[in-house]
Every structure is written in C-alpha cells, then in structure tokens.
C-alpha cells in the first residue's frame, strides 16, 4: 500500500467505562493515538483526565469497552492470560509508587528474575547473568540482588523497577508517572536514566505524567488529555511553543515558572 511503517502501538477509538453498582463513568471517550518504534509519546493531563486508565487498558489491567489496541500488528484487547506471557516479552510497565512497585518480601534478585522465570525457557545461569546486566544498566551494584526493597531509597527502588521492566528487552514500556513521587533531584537522575536507555536500546515509551516539564524533557510527541478526550496532539516542540488548545495553554501557564533568573 504505502511505505509508511506500521506503528508499534496503535490505539483506535478506545473507550473505557467503569461500572459501579449504580452508575457508569465513561473514563475514556474514544481516544486514538500511536507510538512508533523508538519514539517516546508523552501523555499529559490533570488527575482524573484518564491518562493512567489508557496505560492500564493497554496493559490489560482494566477491561476495554470499545475500540481497538494493536501492538506490533496484533490486536491485544482480547489477549488471554497465556498470550499475555508472550506479549510481556515486548510490552512492559513502570508504575508510580516506588514503595509499592516492589514486593517487600522478595529479594531484588528474585523480583528481577521473575519476568524471565514466567517465560519458562531460561536456565538459572542466564537469568542470574541478565539480573547483573540490568542492575548495572540502571546504575545499581551487583550485590543489590541479595538485598530487600526496604534497604533502598525511593529513587533506587524506581531504578530497580526500571531494571525489572528491562529484563526481557521489551520494545515498548508504559511509564505511568514514573518520577512524580520522587524528590526533584532524584527525578532528574531517573529521567536521565530513562533517556539514556531510550538512546541506547531504541526503546519506545508511552510516558504518562501530569508534569509538562518532565514530559517535555523526554517525549518526542505529546498527547494532551482532558476528561477522557484528546484536546491536542503533536510534536513536543510544537505543543510547547505553539499550543493550539486553550486547555494546553492553561496547563503550560500553571506549570512551575522558572522563577530563577537564568544563570549567566
């Protein structure tokens, strides 16, 4: 047909409705977006905009009411638990809360090994070697594998959560507010790490955040979400310099100002 490459992730007219006993809440009202190979798409919105719901729908953590989600050409809306295991090799996730993202009762080594163990095709030696590799990749010492999450700070735990997502060398990582609960100085460390990994491994990411500055640093293009609908999308530089939607302008206006005079 054409020589436009197929996108890695293609979401079309996605709808998610949460049902409680008495009412239905339409969290996502027909959202379409795509992530190409090697691209980082920033998904921005205030809390309640539905940005995390989109991530969870792609990961199969919330039921989809309508629309399609295609990953590497395959429809993944109706993926059965067994096929999810195969999908896990190319689709991974990092979540917000660094204190809840690791099982406190398992050593770091055991937590990191799990994605490979689930696949049931790697021997112990190759798993151990991979654990050391990813730990080094995220800037953690080898001996971290023997220790428990309680011995690490929030920033270190988030590095470990990133390491776990890297274990199977995925193509796409859904990053759901990966830095928002960290100190700013630690956010900078983790963001640099994610950007280095993107450059080094050619990773694609769907980067979900309420903080435009953070998204601007890492994203190639941006989707702005409000009340479950897209209000603006485009290249990151364009959205920042020339926001078309009124809502984007409001978001940009309230973003922390650079109060400090630019150092000379």
């Amino acid at each position, binding site marked *: 047909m054409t020589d436009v490459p197929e996108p890695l992730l293609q979401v079309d007219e996605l709808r998610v409705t949460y049902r409680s006993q008495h009412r239905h809440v339409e969290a996502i009202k027909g959202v379409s977006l795509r992530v190409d190979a090697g691209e980082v798409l920033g998904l921005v919105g205030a809390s309640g905009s539905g940005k995390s719901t989109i991530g969870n729908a792609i990961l199969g953590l919330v039921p989809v009411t309508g629309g399609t989600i295609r990953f590497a050409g395959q429809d993944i809306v109706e993926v059965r638990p067994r096929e999810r295991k195969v999908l896990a090799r190319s689709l*991974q996730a990092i979540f917000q809360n660094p204190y809840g993202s690791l099982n406190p009762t398992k050593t770091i080594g055991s937590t990191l090994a799990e994605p490979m163990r689930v696949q049931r095709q790697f021997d112990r030696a190759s798993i151990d070697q991979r654990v050391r590799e990813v730990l080094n990749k995220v800037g953690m010492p080898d001996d971290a594998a023997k220790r428990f999450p309680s011995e690490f700070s929030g920033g270190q735990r988030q590095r470990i959560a990133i390491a776990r997502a890297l274990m199977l060398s995925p193509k796409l990582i859904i990053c759901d507010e990966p830095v928002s609960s960290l100190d700013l100085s630690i956010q900078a460390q983790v963001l640099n790490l994610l950007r280095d990994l993107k450059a080094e491994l050619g990773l694609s990411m769907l980067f979900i955040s309420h903080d435009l500055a953070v998204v601007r640093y890492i994203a190639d293009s941006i989707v702005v979400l409000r009340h479950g609908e897209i209000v603006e999308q485009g290249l990151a530089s364009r959205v920042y310099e020339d926001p078309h939607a009124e809502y984007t302008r409001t978001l940009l206006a309230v973003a922390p100002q650079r109060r400090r005079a630019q150092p000379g």
Partner: protein
Amino acid sequence: MTVLIPSPAATDADGGRQSGAPGRIRRLLTRPLGAASVVYLLLFVVAAIAPGLLAPGNPQAPDFAHVLSTPTAGHILGTDSLGRDIYTRIIYGAGQSLAGILMAGIVAAAIGIPCGLASSLSRRVDAVVSRASDLVLSIPSIIVLLMVLAFSNNLNLAMAALGLLTAPGLIRVTRSAALPVVEEPYVAAAKVFGLGRVAIAIRHVLPRVIGPILVNLSLIATHALIIAAGLNYLDLGLHPPTPSWGGLLHDSAQVLDQQAWTIVPSGGVIALTVIAIVLLGDAVRDVTAESWGPGHTRAIRRRARRMVVRPAEPPAEPVLDAVLALRDLSITFPAPDGGQLPVVQDVSFDIKRGEAVGIVGESGCGKTITGLAVLGMLPPGAQIAGGSIWVNGRDVTGLPARERAGLRGKTIAFISQEPMVALDPLFTVGYQIAEAVRVHTGLGRAAAWRRAEELLTQVRINEPDRVAKSYPHEISGGMAQRVAIAIALAGNPEILIADEPTTALDVSVQGEIIELLSSLQDEKGLAIMLISHDWEVVSELCTRAVVMYAGQVVERARVEDALDDPRHPYTEGLLAANPHLVVPGEPLRTIPGNVPPPSDWPESCHFQDRCAYVRADCRAQPIPMVSTGPERSSRCLYVELLESTGVAS
C-alpha cells in the same frame, strides 16, 4: 562546568542479613518467649507421637495403695481415683489433643487461605465465597458438633467440622489483609509480565498476609484444644480407658470434693498449651516480617556503636522577636543494638511573626523529624538529645506532654503532604472543621459550624455551605488540602508547619495552594515553616531558606541569595538538579548518588561522597557553620571556591 552523571549508590557491601528458613528459626530461638514455647510444643509433639519416651509407665496401671494422692516421688503429679499416674495419663493424652488441633487447623487453613486469597483477587469468587461464609457463620457450631458426636462419637470428625465452621473467620482475615496488597503496583507488574493468578496469590500476596493468618490459625488451634477438652469433659467423644486431657478434667471434677489437687495438672496442661500456641503464633509472625523488614543489618549495628552523640552546649538565648526558634537541636533514634543513632544534628534557625522559612532538602535529611520535634510529636523511641525549641520566647523542649499538647493546634498547627489522610472518610468536611473549632475554642455546635463555614471562606472555597456538607471522597485533592488548612486554622495558630503541602497535588493546583498560604501569612501574620524539596515552591512563599542535608543545616540564607549565589555545593546541586529547568536536548544535571542513611553519616562533611569539590580535609574533621555574608552562613570549607566559580554556568 560540572556534568554530573548518576553513579551507583556508594553503599556498604556487607549489609547482608540472614534470610530463608534457617535464619528465621535462629531468630525465633533468640526470643525468650518464642524459644520457651518452641521447647514446650516440641515436648507436646514428642508426647503425642511417642509417649513411651517421656513416660515409661502404663497409663492404665492402677496403684491401689496410692489413690487420689498429691505429688510424691513415685507419682510426680499425683494419682487419680483409680490410683493411675496423672503425669503418665497427661503424656498419653497428648496424642488426641494434637490430632484434634491439627484436624481443625488443617481443615480451616485448607479452606480459609485459598478462599480468602481468591476472593481478594476476583470479585466473582468474592461474591460466592462471602455468601457461603455468611451461611456457615449462621450455623450454631455447638449443635453441629453435638450432632457429629451423636452419630459417630469420633472426636477427630468433630474437630474437622469445627475447622470447617471456623474457616469463614480465617477467610475474612485473609481477604481483608490481602485486599490492600492486590492493589499494589507490584501485583500489577506481575500481571503485566504474564504471571498467572494462582502464582500471584502464592508468590506476591500470601507472604504479605501470612502474619495475620498465622495469628488467626494459632487462635483456631487453641479454640480446638479447648472445645475438644470441653466435649470430653461433657463425656462426649471419650474412648475409655484411653486417656484424654478433657477426660482427665472430667475425672478430677468428679472427685473435686475428695481431692482438689487433681484438677491442677489436668487443667494446667491445657492452659499451658494454649499459652504456648498463642505465643508461638505471635513470635513466628514477628520473625517472618523481620526477615524482609527494614534495619537489622550488621553494618548498622557496627556503626551505631561507634557514633557518639556530642553533649549539647548550653543553648544560646534566641532572638526576641522570633515566634519559633531552634537552637542546636539534636534528635536521635534508637539503633537496633540498643544505642542511639543521630538523625538531626545541631539544627538552629528562627522564624519571625508573619515570616515564611523554607526547610529545603531531599528525603532522608531530617526535615520532617525536625517539624515533628517542634510539634512535640516525635515517633516512639526518638528523643531530643540536645539543644532547645523556643516558642514565643519560652523554652518548650522539656515541657510535660500535656502542656505540649496544649500548644498544638492553638499555637502550632500542621498540614501534611497527604490531606486525604488527615480527613476522616466517615464525617462531613464541615463536621470535622467544627470539631477542631470546638476543641480549641469551646464554642457550641451551631457557632462552631458557622465558624467552620467562615474558615472555608478564608481558604478560598466557593460555596462553603455546600462543601461543608460534603464527605472527603466527594472533593478533589486540592480542595482536601484547603480543608486541611482550614482545620489547621481552627485554633488561630501563630505557627503553621507545612510538610510538603503541594507534593501530592497536580502541578496546576500546587500554585493555588501556595498562593493561599501566602495570603494567610499576610492577613493573619502567620509564621510558616515550609518543609519542601522543591525550590520553586520555596521561592514563591518564603523569604529565607534553611538547607538541610543528612541531618545537618548546610546553608542558611535569604531565598533570593541562595537562588542567585548558592554557597554550599549541596544547595547548588539541588538548584541545578530540577527537571523544570530542562533545556531540550541536554541531559538534566543531577547530584550523583543518594542521601546516605544515618548509620553511614561520617563525623566530617556529610556531603563529601556526592560533592564535586571534595578535598582531603573535607574528610578529616567536623565542618563548622561559617558566616558567608550578611544574614547567611554555610557548612563548607571551600565557600570561596563556589564564590569564584559561581553557579555552574
């Protein structure tokens, strides 16, 4: 100038700890009560399996010469009405008691744990399981037990029925402990990489909830023991002449008027066993949690011993116009070895009326603990090891707890990072504010409610009457923080401690909250101690900044001076390492490494391992605060170096 690259955390290499089953058993045995109950229960099990090992005699052998005797050399626990040795009969009765306990415990665990875990993971299963549990709970258990015994006279069968009847309790305990765990992101991560539900339940949920399950199982076991004895006592499920503990109790009750002693050993063994099982359940739970909980590494023990808290010098009188003044405040936490670990060292600063001062630093630097010390709400075990806290010119450091509590709310108020946590979901917002008003002012209900609406207006909430009638779940995070501020204002405080008040909020709401705090500061002359890691928030609200690193104040300065010309490498690093200062296409500047834990703090410069300017003498001795200009000081030996290079450019 300096491009800082994240480096692996410089942490000690020997922080290993005992994990796995052998370590757990060893830790269990180091607890006196745990060890005692293990020894007792081991003897119980031996008696049950091989009673001959512990009691050489025959439990049926009568000694007609000594009927109903008190303890003698030949019969250490005396004899019963047929002259049979009570000690021997107790040992031979252990088998039946253990069988009963195991029967009830295994049946309850086999039903309760899987059903509880399954209902926490699946709503559909939950619907079925909770109906079934309700049904079982509505059956009167004593009638079932009597019926089983009436038809079979088999005590083990009755105990199995008891296990079934107590399973719903275990299901509920398991389910309610597991529900918060299945919401955790690591469970979502496990789903993402394709781990099945059963594996998630076993690997990721069960280890987290095993504590309450063990305690509940130990209660079920003791319940089974007592019920079995009770049934035996009522002459049910007995197979004479085989001894059983309940049977012994039955026999002693028959002869109570002739010989009161016999009831002591037969009742005592049941009581002792119950106590041992409960203690073991508790000890096992504690030990299980310890194997992955924080602390207890060898490194911490070793260092803690080495660190000595310096005696505080006599505190200087604070300046007169300060509402709040800290002088050389030092706080320690208990170390695992019983020593004290300093977490805040020699912190001094003043806040004047109507002034906002920012306490800036990363997590783990002692900012929040300093705030809690000012409130007089240090966590258990933590103590003020030196220095003083002055409120309105009065030293409040040594005040009794009651007087200290009187200051809270009325003079010093507090808002936290998580406003929702501060609100009780069961009561309306207005009721909670009115409660605070009544506690502090003694107003009547109607007047307090009016005052609550006034306070809501003061925190810039439109339609205060409508919001006052809302429940916490009906309002947004930003609104909840406004309500928390209204509650803080209820007692007309002079000092507000705001601990990261905007961190959990959306960027768009953060500015509004800061604006609100700023206007309250102007209108009411409120002094604000703002604890934050975010220079933007600090610069919008505060005139002066106190930068803390690893328990110490490292720089004190006016905010604009600190921003334009930081005089400590840590201040400089914090200012630069901010994603909001991003220049597209360039890596973000960072401070390499992490804040070290208190056990790793050196006597010399605390920042040395992360500092780009570090020299040999930084590692040699404690660094004093030195004045670096009007109204500012810094804890750095090489302030000039920073001055000459200026902010990294």
